[in-house]
């Protein structure tokens, strides 16, 4: 019975994959705990917000195979709602971020409901068009502050006594949101629900024939993704004390795609790596006389033509082949 010897190897391999992920996660966490002492905290917080935003986007493209070209609508909506909650309603910062996430989830329900009626490229165009509609509404709606946006948002006191105007507590707050969001997404991807999502991604017709209500699964994934993206936007608005139209433009939707594509679509760590690179690049380029969008566009083209797996994806592929 030679076959039995190979059977136990499979679970062992999965376990080592899991523990590998855990080790990586602990390593990243250690880095992030040290980061505010090594880098400018606001910069690291920005990276965290965009990494979470990209991870939320990645849930759709990487694990359901849906390319949303309108995720800025959720990011921006989360930013506006959190900003309004903190500034006008004087709510606790955590409550503001949660409200932002909920608001994004509700918007995600509406957008997702329409967008999942079509597949593939049409899905992308629909999400882009609907996010542009949200953008136009944001331009005209009184509570967004139009071109000025919502400025001077108070970071406030977490639970009433932790002063978030201090850099380190604020960093801890953003890090906690990031870790919670990433952990939630990781759990979803590895849950039975996540397995069904991947089955839909790999072969939708088969998933339907197996009796899954594919539309419902897609919609749930869409709402979760939108809510997490919106929470990231809410956190970002507290970090910069600003929510503006920039957060909700199609360029922002493009940026989150680039972060994910560059880092590695369908990988857990890819969005984080992508965010570090893109945000760093943007920060440095802002000081130079080089048009940022040209470089961003160039990276886009290079990614699509040369390494579609992204950085983390290429490394994983390389490790798997060894």
């Amino acid at each position, binding site marked *: 019975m030679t076959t039995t010897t190979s059977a136990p190897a499979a679970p062992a391999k999965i376990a080592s994959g899991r523990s590998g992920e855990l080790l990586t996660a602990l390593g990243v966490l250690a880095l992030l705990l040290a980061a505010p002492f090594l880098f400018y905290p606001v910069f690291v917080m920005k990276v965290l917000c965009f990494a979470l935003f990209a991870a939320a986007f990645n849930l759709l493209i990487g694990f359901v195979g849906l390319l949303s*070209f309108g995720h800025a609508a959720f990011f921006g909506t989360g930013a506006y709602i959190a900003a309004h909650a903190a500034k006008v309603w004087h709510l606790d910062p955590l409550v503001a971020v949660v409200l932002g996430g909920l608001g994004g989830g509700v918007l995600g329900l509406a957008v997702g409901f329409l967008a999942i009626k*079509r597949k*593939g*490229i049409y899905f992308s165009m629909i999400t882009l*068009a609907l996010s*542009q509609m949200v953008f136009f509404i944001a331009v005209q709606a009184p509570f967004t502050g139009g071109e000025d946006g919502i400025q001077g948002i108070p970071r406030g006191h977490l639970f009433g006594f932790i002063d978030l105007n201090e850099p380190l507590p604020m960093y801890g707050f953003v890090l906690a949101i990031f870790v919670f969001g990433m952990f939630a997404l990781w759990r979803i991807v590895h849950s039975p629900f996540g397995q069904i999502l991947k089955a839909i991604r790999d072969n939708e017709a088969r998933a339907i024939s197996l009796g899954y209500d594919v539309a419902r699964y897609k919609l749930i994934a869409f709402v979760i993704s939108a809510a997490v993206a919106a929470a990231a936007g809410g956190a970002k608005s507290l970090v910069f004390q600003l929510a503006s139209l920039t957060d909700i433009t199609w*360029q922002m939707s493009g940026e989150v795609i680039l972060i994910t594509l560059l880092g590695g679509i369908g990988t857990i760590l890819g969005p984080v790596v992508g965010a570090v690179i893109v945000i760093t690049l943007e920060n440095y380029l802002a000081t130079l006389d080089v048009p940022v969008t*040209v470089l961003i566009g*160039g990276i886009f*083209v290079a990614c699509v033509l040369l390494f579609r797996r992204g950085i983390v994806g290429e490394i994983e592929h390389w490790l798997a082949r060894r």
Partner: protein
Amino acid sequence: MTTIFGVPAAALYGQILIGLINGSFYALLSLGLAVIFGLLNVINFAHGALYMLGAFTAWLGLQYFGLNYWAALVVVPIVVGLFGIVIERLALRRISGLDPLYGLLLTFGLTLVIEGLFRYWYGSSGQPYAPPPQLTGGVNLGFMFLPIYRGWVVIASVIVCFATWYVIERTRLGAYLRAATENPALVKAFGINVPLLITLTYAGGVALAGFAGVLAAPIYQVSPLMGSNLIIVVFAVVVVGGMGSILGAIVTGYLLGVLEGLTKVFYPPASAIVIFVVMAVVLLVRPAGLFGRGD
């Protein structure tokens, strides 16, 4: 003064005209998108940037080479088409056969590069481009005043749309294109040079965008971002019409343009979003689009 539904008739006609003009651009652009998508399976995000490139080429031609408007109408689509050939040969060809999403991402990246460069070179503000002397002024039609250039835009776009439709539906070349859209491998096996056909189709599609850019130059300011906002609306037009039908793309373009114009008369704040709302309604009622044949 005559009023219709409480709106001055002249204002109503004026907005319908503006709607027809916007519709002309929607039609020209969505037509090009549909033709390219049919054969290449690529949603050409760069379509808006190439429309901008068309307008800029006309403007630059006038500034530096004294290229007049009429010459620009011929030369610019050729220039943009040649640029399209370069894009297709160097980039799009290398991702053919992959998921169409990569085509969208690639052309999105190209859009950022093209727009970024023009913004770097010319700033974000618009450049004026005067209409040709033959088309300045206007005529009083009795019920409204018609600026001649605007009338010309509508007529020119209708002619070009019809000509494109004719080439695709009624000529030998169009038959090759339709057949290759259905089954490229078999068409190749018959001895037709499909790779060349693909290059020419992309070039032709973007030449339409370049032509639209020249038409637009005297109406809108020539600016680096004039294309990207437009292309997103055109995506919505394409979703409404469905990309299965050439005639459908054209008709949907004009209809939605007029609808947008009418909205500007009756409820101005909604005019920026009315096309997106129509798209949402169409998705609810008839997800494949008005003229679509499903995914």
